């Protein structure tokens, strides 16, 4: 049993997953993650480097990954904006890499000690072009550990960038849990020829191309790969529910407590927790919206980003109640409970 923070859990998960390269850029609230990697990587023969900015950090990670080192980068919101161009690059060039983004209050520099959930869209559509990227949303240090190991396997199997989307709360909170013993890992097959990665549209050998058929083929392959990513979610008390709460990350902790409170008062409430935010578990939510009378969408976001996606795929199927908070504080179980009973 270990009593560790989300940052330490991710660092441990990454080391257990075989990470041997970490490019850092000082950034709260993930400083502890970088500090752990700086200390632990040389002991395993791995490499740690502090780069000049987040964009350079992800560039270095892609460089390291392209020559066979599993690589991790961690940052928080403004830094995540800086490195977007290279998520697009890794997606196009099919370079496996994992990026941790600890969401904090924004816009602009914001404040790194305040958790918010304002990057539902930035994590998927932050850079130019149509590129594949998976976004995972753990809600506790234990889940962060498990999902980090899973993220590396997913990035290797699909050869895509994977974003672990946490927030300041998950990054710094501590929890007691057991590590998985010897997780199953995917290993890389070395390239058979002198490869070429390029930011341009390219054919199957990697050469830049202007041929519409080859451009279409590449775009189709990338998109099919994205669609084939498994959508993870967990259901709680949904079997007989007529009200379903939907949340992810930090907010899902309050949502679960609110559902328990509601059940205690004989309300037929259930909880749907999103663990893969992108690709969005669209089909599953459409099924759910047909089953329940009302959906409660809980998020700490001013522009209702999560609610916007859910409404766009389940339009008109049921009623919605939005429970949101954007003053820098977390949603409480009581606030979500009030939404359920409203």
């Amino acid at each position, binding site marked *: 049993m270990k009593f560790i923070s989300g940052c330490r859990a991710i660092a441990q998960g990454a080391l257990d997953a075989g990470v041997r390269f970490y490019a850092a850029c000082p950034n709260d609230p993930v400083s502890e993650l970088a500090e752990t990697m700086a200390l632990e990587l040389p002991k395993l023969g791995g490499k740690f480097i502090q780069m000049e*900015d987040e964009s350079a950090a992800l560039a270095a990670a892609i460089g390291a990954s392209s020559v066979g080192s599993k690589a991790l980068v961690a940052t928080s919101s403004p830094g995540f904006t800086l490195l977007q161009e*290279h998520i697009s690059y890794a997606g196009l060039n099919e370079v496996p890499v994992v990026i941790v983004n600890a969401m904090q209050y924004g816009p602009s520099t914001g404040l790194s000690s305040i958790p918010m959930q304002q990057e539902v869209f930035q994590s998927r559509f932050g850079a130019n072009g149509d590129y594949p990227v998976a976004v995972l949303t753990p809600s506790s240090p234990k889940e962060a550990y498990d999902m980090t190991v899973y993220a590396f396997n997913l990035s290797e199997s699909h050869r895509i960038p994977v974003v672990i989307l946490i927030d300041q709360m998950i990054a710094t909170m501590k929890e007691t849990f057991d590590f998985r013993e010897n997780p199953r890992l995917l290993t890389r097959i070395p390239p058979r020829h002198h490869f070429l990665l390029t930011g341009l549209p390219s054919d199957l050998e990697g050469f830049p191309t202007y041929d519409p058929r080859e451009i279409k083929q590449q775009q189709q392959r990338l998109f099919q790969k994205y669609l084939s990513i498994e959508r993870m979610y967990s259901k709680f008390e949904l079997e007989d529910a007529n009200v379903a709460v939907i949340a992810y990350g930090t907010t899902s902790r309050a949502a679960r407590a609110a559902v328990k409170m509601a059940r205690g008062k004989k309300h037929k409430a259930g909880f749907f927790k999103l663990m893969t935010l992108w690709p969005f578990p669209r089909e599953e939510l459409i099924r759910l919206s047909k089953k329940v009378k009302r959906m409660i969408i809980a998020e700490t976001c001013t522009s209702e980003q999560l609610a916007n996606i859910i409404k766009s795929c389940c339009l008109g199927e049921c009623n919605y109640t939005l429970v949101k908070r954007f003053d820098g504080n977390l949603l409480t179980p009581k606030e979500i409970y009030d939404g359920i009973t409203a």
Partner: protein
Amino acid sequence: MMELQPNPVIQRYLRTGKKHPVFFCPGCQVGIIMGALIRGINECNLQKDEIFLVSGVGCSGRMPVYLDLCSIQATRGRALAFATGVKMAKPHLKVIAVIGDGEAVSVGTSHLVQAARRNIDLTVVVINNFMHAMTGGQPSPTTPHKTIAPLAPYGNVEHPLDICDFAVCSGATFVGRQTAYHAENLAELLAQAIKHNGFSLVEATSLCHMKPERKSPVDALLWLKEKAAKGEIITGIFKNTAKPELTGEYEKIIKANRS
């Protein structure tokens, strides 16, 4: 009539699967500099698997398409950040980065300064043609004062930066300059830079003969010759010193702490 024979040294380093025609304009000096780079690599007795090539965008960025080496064509200006990752992860590789002046001392400035300061064993070839050539000849940070160019229709009001001076100040341990006209000297300089253990920068001065207005490729080369003869383009080695190299230093940490 004399028949042109393919040069066996050059052929050895070219990709065979590349679809033609080549991207460069006929008479482009990037081709001459690529030839010099191949001769330089060849002189160092390196296997193709021991070299990793990184480039950026623009005309010089297309070099990895033709060279049969493991390579990355990076995002604009970030070539040295990618190269740093490659070199850190696999220090046995000889990492060469080819970038243009529009990247090296504009968007990529911080990467150039930091890589030089770290003294990581990279060989950086900056192809300096004093402009953003691919996009039409707009001014770059090396464009001379008062030059008339697109985006500077009344003359460039800014002052140029000397890439070699800048590299020396940043802490590079090997810095030199040659022009595309002096291709053989450039090849020798590149060989020296590749053999150097530490951050090395070679400025390959060139002139685009297509942008902003067309001139003959021969005139463009003669312009370089003339400028070098007058001392307006100073060629040679400006710095060649030894300093502990980054990946070597990190290996020592690994050796001392490995469990």
